């Protein structure tokens, strides 16, 4: 329990700081290929 609280003190998935939708498309490749860029545009971000 102590360890869990210690871990959660560093933040949880529901504690805010959620990455942007745009970040979802980053780091799939070193350079974003055109098809993924199109999909990111379709996602509106």
């Amino acid at each position, binding site marked *: 329990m102590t360890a869990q609280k210690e871990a959660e003190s560093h933040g949880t*998935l529901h504690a805010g700081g*959620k*990455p942007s*939708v745009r*970040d*979802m*498309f980053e780091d*799939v490749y070193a350079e974003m290929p055109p*098809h*993924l860029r199109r*999909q*990111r545009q379709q*996602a509106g971000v």
Partner: protein
Amino acid sequence: MPRKTMVEAIRDAMDVMMGRDDNVVAFGEDVGFFGGVFRATQGLQAKYGKSRCFDAPINESGIVGAAVGMAAYGLRPCVEIQFADYMYPAYDQIVSEAARLRYRSNGQFTCPLVVRMPTGGGISGGQTHSQSPEALFTHVAGLKTVVPSNPSDAKGLLIAAIEDPDPVIFLEPKRLYNGPFDGHHDRPITPWSKHELGEVPDGHYVVPLGKAIVRRQGAALTVLAYGTMVYVGTAAVAETGVDAEIIDLRTLLPLDLETIQASVRKTGRCVIIHEATRTSGFGAELSALVQETCFYHLETPIRRVTGWDTPYPHAQEWDYFPGPARVGRALLETMEQ
């Protein structure tokens, strides 16, 4: 008629088949004593003994490899891969051995094997517990691939799969285990006990492989869906008011092309939806088939709504998951075009 969850229906199918046929065996990681992480084999070891339902080491290639040997010997293994995401070490055994044994031996050996796998997202499972790898199986000659969307179908399809003379990949949408899910993750879930498709007949019955079903009759547009997306599509249709016909494919291969053609030739419009990534997803095959066989009936381009071509994200799950808002936009755009 008794109502069951999809897990209970799947367990019931294995129970029925293990009771009817001593050659049916079930095994996998935690499948025996514990009854499976989703409890799909709960009680089967106590009922049929440790030689019929047992635990396997954490070795997916070993699980499927042993099952291929058992099937060639004459047994009918129904094995569990704990999550479809864990399947990759077994892929060589599935593709190079199970799928080809009949062909390679000129029919002298066969592989009546079922590989069950929980599939899909919607459970905050991140990239290692949420993937939808169905297209990796439909691309392989010699495999059949099944994706049930409700308890009633799940039992009948799994019995048909166990009785089938060839290897069957049985993908269980894990978000549907306890109830239908329409993509509105912020709303209370409906349990199968309150849904008519939770009614599961007792005893032995079969839902034939290769037969789709029309879940909603409509005249304006055809939605092709399977698994969880059947309910997402249904919600999108209700929220947009588009008079769409919703087809639940149930089996991806062999595919019920006749039902698809009859619908698209009637409506002239087609939207394909799946959770899996877009490029080379099963939707691409569906789109090609509809174009090839219904071209002169189409009034608008075929649309796909799918997961994006990224690993399944943890933090942005509901931006990745093709929910009713995205599906609804595609329905309206297709109607307005």
